[in-house]
């Protein structure tokens, strides 16, 4: 499903000519199979987010290739990436990343709108999903009128709306309290079981890491895999 081959990434900072090169990832190889939950852990600054941003196409790798669903996404241009993301990937972020000027409903509906679905069809699909995440009473609320947990559920609804086979999550529980975190983890497991959605989750939280079928640790820019039998 996701295959990373010899992936390296370096950041360049400073002015041209006097750049400092910061190597973050070095020759990463990773394979995530259909229906797996894989969690990535590592110390702060180890390059977990960088790895996910590379797989999401937000940044381009210095070296190496990434295949998603047998597509060599490293060769994609911006426009192709956009379409690929819309149809194949769902995203959950630590700070939710909801559009503040849109209601919860509009935020979830957005992907359908971008895809060009009719208004009526959008409404039924979005409402259905709101029921599923248990937020049907809050559809017309703006993000600022929702709690952190509610906002994260809205953002999960947004990630699910186009039924993507893969969901990428960077510290999805980072802004939530312990109880809400548990609810969210249960929901992720449920989605994985019922719908077979593949998850790649980045975290530094033990509890979150443990829901993974596999846990992968990044140390000094390289991967160390810990098999987990849960």
């Amino acid at each position, binding site marked *: 499903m996701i295959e990373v081959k010899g992936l390296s990434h370096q950041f360049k900072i400073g002015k041209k000519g006097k750049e400092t090169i910061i190597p973050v990832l070095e020759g990463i190889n990773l394979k995530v199979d259909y229906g797996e939950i894989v969690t990535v852990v590592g110390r702060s600054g180890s390059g977990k987010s960088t790895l996910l*941003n590379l797989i*999401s196409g*937000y*940044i381009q790798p210095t070296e190496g290739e990434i295949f998603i669903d047998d597509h060599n996404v490293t060769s994609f241009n*911006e*426009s192709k990436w*956009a*379409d*690929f*993301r*819309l*149809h194949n*990937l769902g*995203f959950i*972020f630590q*700070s939710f*990343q*909801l*559009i*503040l*000027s849109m209601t919860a409903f509009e935020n979830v509906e*957005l*992907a359908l*709108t*971008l*895809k*060009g679905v009719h*208004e009526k069809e959008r409404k039924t699909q979005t409402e259905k999903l709101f029921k599923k995440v248990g937020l049907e009473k809050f559809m017309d609320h703006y993000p600022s009128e929702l709690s952190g947990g509610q906002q994260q559920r809205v953002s999960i609804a*947004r990630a699910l709306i186009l039924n993507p086979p893969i969901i990428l999550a960077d510290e999805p529980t980072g802004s939530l309290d312990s109880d809400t975190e548990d609810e969210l983890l249960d929901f992720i497991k449920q989605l994985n079981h019922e719908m077979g959605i593949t998850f790649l989750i980045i975290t530094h939280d033990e509890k979150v890491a443990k829901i993974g079928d596999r846990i992968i640790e990044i140390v000094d820019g390289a991967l160390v895999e810990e098999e987990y039998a849960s």
Partner: protein
Amino acid sequence: MRFKDQFKFVRQNMKKNKTRIFMTVLATAMGCAFLIVLASVGFGLQKSIVEEITQDRLMTEIQVHGKENEENAGITMDDITYFEGLDHVKAVTRRQMVDQQGEFRVGEFRAEGNAVVVDFPSETKAGFELSEGRLPEADNEVVIGHDFAESLAKWNGKETAPLNEDGTVKEEFKYKGKLIGETLNLGVKQYEGEEEKSKTFDVKIVGIGKKPTKDWEWDPNIYISEKVLSEIEAFTGTPNGTVITPNLPAEERDLMEQRKDRFYSQVSIYADDVENVKTISETIKDKKYFAYSVVDEMEQINTVFLIVKSGLIFIGTIAIIIASIGIYNTMTMAVTERAPDIGIMKAIGANPSTIKRIFLIESSYIGLLGAIFGTIVAYLITLGVNWLLPIILSNAFGEPIPGDFKFSHIPLSLPLICIGICLVVTILSGLRPARRATKVDVLKAMRREV
């Protein structure tokens, strides 16, 4: 993304900053109104002048005034035959003056005027109409001009005519009866050596011409056929009945006596359609005839006005370009403000081209709104100008301006041109902000770093 949704998106975004959008639309509307009002003066003057020229005139007429490069510069029968043979020529009218100090008498009434020799068949084809009676059939029948009766005065034998100061005949001397069927005596003179001899031709009035189309025109002529002219020529011994007075210099006399052909003084070619006037006119101009047609004149006027109008539209466009700076600013600010939203949209899979299109729709929507409001305002200003300016001018100069004279006129093409220019300018000014929107970095935007 559907256009409808993109448009909805744009409207929602615009609602968030009503004042800024309003000011930008206002500036654009002012630019458009300025352009339309400025150019409408060009259109208005052109329309009024063209209407003035074409009023009551036959657009299909080509007047021929002579021929270049020949000693004999008059138009002769040969030329007329040539004109009649051209394609798309409906009729060729030719008028000649009888070269005499014409004296006409009906009973004891007398008038002075011109005897005009016309070719009735071609005149009829060209639109010559009678108000009464019929066209001549026999050789000695004539048609009189509409105002001939007015110029007849009872003659008291003295030289001074019984006229009012303005040249009209005094009421008590006016001819009151009807003229059709009356005999008209046409006096003709010629010198034989020193001696003056005269002859009177008796002709019968059978028809009266139509009233001239223009109010100030006055037609006291009599219209005779070429057959009557031939009789006159037989008496005078000169073409067109020219009088050769004894005190004329010898050279001129010789010239006159040598002349054999009749000269046609007012020759007009009538085309079968306005569209063919230009071709005929060019053909005969190539043959070195002096030709004039309203169409020719119109073409020159239209060329001049085309330049004037283009100039005015160009100046107006500058106003729109200035307004477009406002659009550029508004759009740049909109992109900056919405960068986090753009970043999130890109993160979940919005295509850069969609984002670009949304911003271009927004800037052209502002442009379109401006153009529409500008057009409405321009129409109002034009109404005001056309109502107010004649009043001001007639007060200032003490002379009334002709009633239907329009200073400003907005043809449908003008708002369309303006909307077109406005859209092009606003899309161009929105292009850079829109491109900037597509370049928003997803990660920076999500970290609220933009």
